[in-house]
C-alpha cells in the first residue's frame, strides 16, 4: 500500500511542474476569461455583473460582424493557399530529393517561416506600396493594371492572405515532405507496374496516405487563420476604413483602446468557440483515426 502511494506521488511530481504552468496560464485563463466576459469593467477597477450583455452587445454590433466576416474571408483565402502551396512545394522537393541542390531550394522555401510577423508585414507593405512597391511597378511594366492592393477594400484581405501564405507555406511543406517520405517506394512501383498515370498515383495513393498530414496542417492553419493579427496591424491596421479589421484586432481595440475589457474577453471566448467548433468539424469531416 505504501509503495502504491509512493508511486502515485512520484507520477504526480513528474507531471506537476508542467501541469502547474498549464493550469495557471492556459486552462485557467479560459475560465477566467469567461468570468471576465460576464462583467462590465470600470477602468478604475470596479466591476459590475451584467450577465450575457457583453455577448448581446457583440451580436448587435455591426463592427463585430464586419470583423467576423473579414476573419472568415481571410481564413477562406489563406488556409487553402497555405496548405495548397505547401503541398505543391513538398511534391516538387520530393520529386527532386535525389539532387543535392534540392536541400537548398527547400531551405529557401522554408526560411520565411522563421521571420517574425512584423518583418513579414513590413516587407510586404513595402512590396505592395501603391506608388513605389516593386510588385505594382513590375505588374504595370508587364502591361497589367493592378489594384492598389492594400488601399482597396476588396483587395486588402487577399493581399494580406498572400503575404501570410508566403510566410507560412514553408512549414507545411516540411510536414508534407516528411509524410511523402513515409510512403514506401513499393507503393509507387506497384502502381506504375499496373500502368497508373502520375495523376492517378497522386489521387489514389498520395492523397489518401497524406490524409493525416493534411488534417494536421488544416487544423494548425485554421487556428492560425482565425487569430490573425500582426500582419494585418502592420500592413493595413485594419483599413482602408475597417475593410480588413479582423476579430483579434477588434478584441485588441475594445480591450486596450476603448477599455471595454468585458466585451474584449467575450470576443476571446467567441474566438475560442469558433476554433473548437472548426477543429471538431474538420476531425469528423476528414475521418480522424487517432494514432496517439
Amino acid at each position: 500500500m505504501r509503495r502504491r502511494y509512493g508511486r502515485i506521488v512520484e507520477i504526480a511530481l513528474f507531471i506537476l511542474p508542467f501541469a502547474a504552468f498549464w493550469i495557471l496560464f492556459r486552462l485557467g485563463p479560459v475560465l477566467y476569461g469567461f468570468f471576465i466576459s460576464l462583467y462590465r469593467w470600470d477602468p478604475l477597477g470596479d466591476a459590475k455583473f451584467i450577465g450575457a450583455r457583453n455577448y448581446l452587445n457583440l451580436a448587435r454590433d455591426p463592427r463585430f460582424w464586419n470583423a467576423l466576416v473579414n476573419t472568415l474571408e481571410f481564413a477562406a483565402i489563406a488556409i487553402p493557399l497555405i496548405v495548397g502551396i505547401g503541398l505543391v512545394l513538398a511534391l516538387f522537393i520530393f520529386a527532386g530529393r535525389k539532387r543535392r541542390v534540392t536541400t537548398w531550394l527547400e531551405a529557401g522555401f522554408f526560411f520565411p517561416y522563421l521571420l517574425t510577423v512584423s518583418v513579414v508585414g513590413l516587407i510586404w507593405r513595402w512590396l505592395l506600396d501603391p506608388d513605389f512597391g516593386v510588385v505594382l511597378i513590375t505588374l504595370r511594366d508587364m502591361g497589367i493594371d493592378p489594384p492598389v492592393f492594400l488601399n482597396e477594400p476588396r483587395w486588402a484581405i487577399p493581399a494580406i492572405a498572400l503575404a501570410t501564405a508566403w510566410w507560412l507555406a514553408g512549414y507545411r511543406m516540411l510536414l508534407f515532405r516528411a509524410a511523402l517520405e513515409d510512403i514506401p517506394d513499393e507503393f509507387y512501383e506497384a502502381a506504375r507496374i499496373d500502368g497508373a498515370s502520375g495523376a492517378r498515383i497522386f489521387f489514389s495513393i498520395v492523397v489518401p496516405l497524406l490524409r493525416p498530414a493534411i488534417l494536421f496542417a488544416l487544423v494548425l492553419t485554421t487556428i492560425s487563420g482565425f487569430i490573425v493579427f500582426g500582419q494585418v496591424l502592420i500592413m493595413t491596421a485594419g483599413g482602408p476604413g475597417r475593410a480588413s479589421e479582423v476579430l483579434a484586432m477588434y478584441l485588441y481595440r475594445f480591450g486596450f483602446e476603448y477599455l471595454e475589457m468585458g466585451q474584449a474577453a467575450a470576443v476571446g471566448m467567441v474566438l475560442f468557440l469558433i476554433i473548437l467548433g472548426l477543429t471538431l468539424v474538420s476531425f469528423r469531416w476528414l475521418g480522424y483515426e487517432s494514432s496517439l
Partner: protein
Amino acid sequence: MTAARLGPRLLVAVVAALALLWVAPIAWMFTTGIKPAPEIFALPPTWIPQRPTLDHVHEVLSRWPFLRWALNSVVVAGATTVLSVLVSVPAAYAFSRLRWRGRDAIFLVFLSSMLIPLEVNVIPLYFLMNRLHLLNTYPAVFLPMIGMPIGIFLLRQFYINIPGELDDAARVDGCGNLRILWHVILPLSRPALAALVIYMFTFAWNEFFWSMIALSSPQMFTLPIGLRALQGAYDIDYGVLMAGAALAVLPTLMLFLFLRGSIIRGITMTAHK
C-alpha cells in the same frame, strides 16, 4: 537527350526559379535597407544598390534601443525554451515510460489544449499579470508560453519508441525513475530535445500579440514589438524600416545558414506525427 532525362532537369530549373522568387522579398528588404532615400523611390527600381549607405542602419541603432530589444528577445526566448524543456521532460516521461490508470486520458486533455492559442487568452492573462504585478516584465511575456502541449507531445512521441528493455536493465541495477530518465532516456532523446528547443525558441522569438499587450515601455520591447514601434515613427520611410527589419533578421539568417540541416530536421519533427 531523352525526355526522361530532360524532365528532372527541367523540374529542378523551374523549382529553382520559384525558390529565387520566394526569397526575393528578403533580398529586397536587405537592399532597400542600404539604399539612400532617393534611390529607394527611383523608377525603375534598382536591384543592386548603386550607392550603398549605412545611414539607415545608423539611424536605427543610434536613435532606438535596438540592441536592448535584441537582448530582451534573447532573454524571453531563452527563458521560454529552458523552462519549457525543464517542465516537459519529466511530464513526457510519465506519459510514456510509466504505466498508470488514466494516463492517456489526461494526456489527451493536455494535448487538446492546442486549441487554446495564446491570442484567445490575452484579456484574462492581462488581468492575471496585473494582479501579480508582472506587467511590463520578462516573466509576463514568457510564463504563458511555457505550458505548451507541443513540448510533452513531441518528447512523448520519441520516448515511446525507446525500447523498454533499457529501463528494465537499469531497474534491475537498482535505478529509480529519475536516474533512468537522466541516464537512459535523456542521452537517447537528443534529436527530440533539439527539435523542442528550436521550436520553442522560434515560437517565443516571434511572439507578437501577447508581447505587445504585456510590454509597455520601449526599454522592455522585444524585437517584433520594437519593429512595430519603428513603423509607428517612420510610417513609409522604408529605408529605415527595412534596415531595422534586416537587422532583426540577420542573426536568424546567420544561424539558419550554419544550422540549416538541424533546424529543418527539428522543425520537421514538430510537425510530423
